[in-house]
């Protein structure tokens, strides 16, 4: 039979390689077929949260009651966020998630800074700029609109 075939088709090295390649392709196909639904199953809440994260604005009805030099904590989508009422009656809305390792930060009225208790990072309450400690980036700032008894916070 081998006489009818080109000589290289009978080469055992080549045959073994083809066998391994076929087994590899088949194995990868099975891993993909089994792995894909498992991955989507595990990632499902992540995808759902990402969809909810596309919130564009949040209306804070009672926010005007926040005293001066204090912060109101709220959720922007799923992200903890803060609305700071400054002493000169201006407002700043920032993400309250530390850009270092994701702890929730807090406003310190005595020192007028935003402080992260986890690793001691500090931020400027007016801009969210990272002032000291480990945080690599400023806090995300939102746009604030004050109107008839409520405050609307929008993605910047």
């Amino acid at each position, binding site marked *: 039979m081998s006489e009818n075939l080109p000589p290289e088709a009978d080469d055992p090295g080549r045959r073994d390689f083809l066998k391994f390649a076929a087994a590899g392709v088949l194995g990868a196909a099975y891993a993909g077929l089994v792995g894909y639904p498992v991955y989507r199953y595990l990632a499902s809440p*992540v995808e759902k949260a990402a969809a909810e*994260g596309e919130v564009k604005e949040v209306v804070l009805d009672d926010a005007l009651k926040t005293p001066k030099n204090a912060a109101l*904590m709220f959720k922007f989508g799923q992200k903890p966020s803060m609305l700071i009422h400054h002493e000169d009656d201006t407002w700043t809305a920032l993400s*309250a998630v530390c850009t270092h390792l*994701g702890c*929730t930060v807090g406003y310190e009225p005595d020192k007028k800074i935003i402080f992260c208790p986890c690793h001691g*990072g500090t931020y400027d309450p007016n801009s969210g700029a990272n002032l000291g*400690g480990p*945080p*690599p980036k400023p806090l995300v700032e939102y746009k604030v609109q004050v109107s008839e008894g409520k405050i609307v916070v929008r993605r910047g």
Partner: protein
Amino acid sequence: MDSRVGNWLDERLGLSAIIELATHKRVPEHKHSFWYYWGGITLFFFTVMCFTGVLLLLYYRPGNEAYESVRQITYDIQFGWLIRSTHSWSANLMIGSAFVHMFSTYFLKSYRRPREFLWFSGLALLLLGMVFGFSGYLLPMDDLAYFATKVGLGIPAVVPVVGPWISDLVRGGPEISAFTVSRFFALHVVVLPALFIPVLMLHLALVQKHGMSSPESELEKPEHKRKTIPFFPNFAMKDLAVWLIALNVLAFLAAMFPWSLGPAADSLKPAPMDIHPEWYFMSSFEVLKLFGKWFPGEFGEFAGLGLFNVGLVLWVLVPFFDPERRAGAWARRATWFGLVVVAVLLVTTIWGYAVLPAAAH
């Protein structure tokens, strides 16, 4: 095995080989024998945790009710506080005795040929044990657990490209939630035991195969001057006595210092000022904090994590640097490296506790 039943069983189960092993096994006895008990102590605390863990499973409910169910275990169920306290104390004592076991085998150089796989499997058990601790720490969902886990899961997120994706997948979303608790619960009670127990079996089988390692000071003596005692009953009885001491210490701590339960986690409250991880993560927590202070920004994060990972890789590979007796300069270097590791871990751990606000004490 004289009786007919004995013969019948022996033919099928090969019991005589085990009995043969037990009667002839001998354990070296010398001035460093004290350190031989620490592996057994670690095993004892592990069995206590299996037992109390099953009891906790009967009332614990993962998901949204996690905090409420732990509150019930702690305050409503008879002796629930004691079972939970024993589980937590035993976990800490297990990690503690595993550290003692690891450092004593390191400085006695038990990782040398042919015991390399005892060293590797032991380290795998310690790392799995720490993941057990990390995953168990979140399950009550009180505020300290919540934020400590938040920081812990923030660490893989700094790895470029795949990091945030891994963190999100482990958390089940961008924030810690009931999904995270369920995932950690499955990890803690099913996945980790399924990985831990076979590695433990390998570790124990290798101890049987190679016997206890003798330190340098013993190997220098001529063979006939080395003392040994029979494993059974002499060493086994001593082991049992040590286990009894371990049980007494555990009972004292669990009953006199019951494990506390903080207020329920609330993602909108700033992290508590005294936030800190379990003591066995305190060193890495403090190193991360210090590097963040010294080198602000992303570089500090990478430097801190890099230092820990390089140290860990060197630690794992030590049997290759210091493979046998008369390794000469490398043997001394390995000892010095070990002393530096102990010093760094101790100093950063103590430092970490010293700078915590008073609320923690």
